[in-house]
């Protein structure tokens, strides 16, 4: 199993690569029919590229002719396909005629906060930076819990866990320190350890904060990731 790792520095100038564990979702709700029989989700085909509107329009052109074709021959229904359950699929790109492309050129479009396009550029892959090439730096910047929760929207959280005794010692010490300081430590990239964290390639850069609590020899160390600060959006003029 591919365990995610992060390299963390602590207040004592030490660093270690430790495990990140995602939150466990609570039991998902299931559904039953009126008889109490369990039901399952199913995705079925309604039409295909060969019977879709675009194909009909390209074949018949005029809407009157399409209507006539629908009445006379049911070209919009493929009896072999409609209602068939769709299994696993791969994503492909299709051109204006609905034909799959074997090579497509990706372009990155940038939109401003009002949804208007501002620029287009060639996409650049941004690598994850949880385990950087050079050891990370302890930022030394602490934020009180109270200020942190009222300032940021923490949209993701990962539990920082040990996989051996040395890591346990490192993480328990870090959690105890943060608990004693009653604050969250800014954890980030760059020479000052305050830059954004990118959890995986091309993921949204986020601000990271470490929160620690201890109960005897047990500890809870959580990496909170903030996607944005809580502030009202600007009104569009």
């Amino acid at each position: 199993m591919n365990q995610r790792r992060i390299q963390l520095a602590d207040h004592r100038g030490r660093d270690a690569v430790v495990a990140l564990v995602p939150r466990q979702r609570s039991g998902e709700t299931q559904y039953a029919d009126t008889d109490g029989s369990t039901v399952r989700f199913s995705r079925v085909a309604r039409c295909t590229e060969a019977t879709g509107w675009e194909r009909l329009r390209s074949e018949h052109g005029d809407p009157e002719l399409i209507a006539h074709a629908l009445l006379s021959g049911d070209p919009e229904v493929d009896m072999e396909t409609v209602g068939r359950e769709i299994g696993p699929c791969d994503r492909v790109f299709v051109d204006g005629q609905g034909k799959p492309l074997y090579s497509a050129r990706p372009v990155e479009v940038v939109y401003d906060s009002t949804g208007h396009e501002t620029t287009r550029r060639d996409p650049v892959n941004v690598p994850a930076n949880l385990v950087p090439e050079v050891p990370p730096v302890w930022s030394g910047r602490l934020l009180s819990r109270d200020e942190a929760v009222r300032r940021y929207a923490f949209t993701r959280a990962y539990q920082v866990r040990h996989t051996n005794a040395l890591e346990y010692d490192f993480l328990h010490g870090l959690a105890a320190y943060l608990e004693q300081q009653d604050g969250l430590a800014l954890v980030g990239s760059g020479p000052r350890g305050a830059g954004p964290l990118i959890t995986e390639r091309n993921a949204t850069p986020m601000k990271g904060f470490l929160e620690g609590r201890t109960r005897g020899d047990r500890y809870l160390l959580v990496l909170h990731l903030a996607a944005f600060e809580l502030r009202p959006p600007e009104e569009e003029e």
Partner: protein
Amino acid sequence: MAAYLDVTYQGQSCRFAMTVVDRKRLHGFTKRLALDADGNECAAAHLSRDGCFLLSAGSTADQYINERGDSIPRADLTSVDSDGRALTTLAPTTGRSQEVEGPIAPHEILDHIAVKAHALAPETLSPALQSALARGAIFKVPYRPRKTTQPIPTFLLANRMGIFLVQAEPCGFEFVGPQHLPAETDVWADDQGEEFDFDQHERWNQ
């Protein structure tokens, strides 16, 4: 139509207009498109693994089927837990004033992740609630925009930029001791909703 939040604090009613706040609305966003050889934008579609079906947007339908294979209308579905017991459905709180609970400690929010946030513009704000929020108090609010079987932890708080309502989901993290090692099943379920994989382009061109 604007959405409103109606709450009661110490017997006094307050009403807020709600505006969704997210990263897109604050910082903008980027989207990756695919262009064909002529520079025209391409649409995404799905190709079944057996290669038989090319499914463009709108060419599939979602349904629920029972053990006999019958399609069940959504209106006839009942929410059940993992043991098949029917769950109680909680009614929406929209349009009904809810009593705020708290104040609560900040670590209660830290036990959750935010799933949706709203900026609140007060239309009626009691002096008592205004004063409490200005002092940094954080409250829980029973808030359900639609009927649900799971309560949605929702927090009311303020900072120097305004008043906010944050809907959340619990993290469920537990304290760990020296003997507790991460399980092999702890995969990154949260990341499955990331933007699509553009490696396809690289693989196609290899």
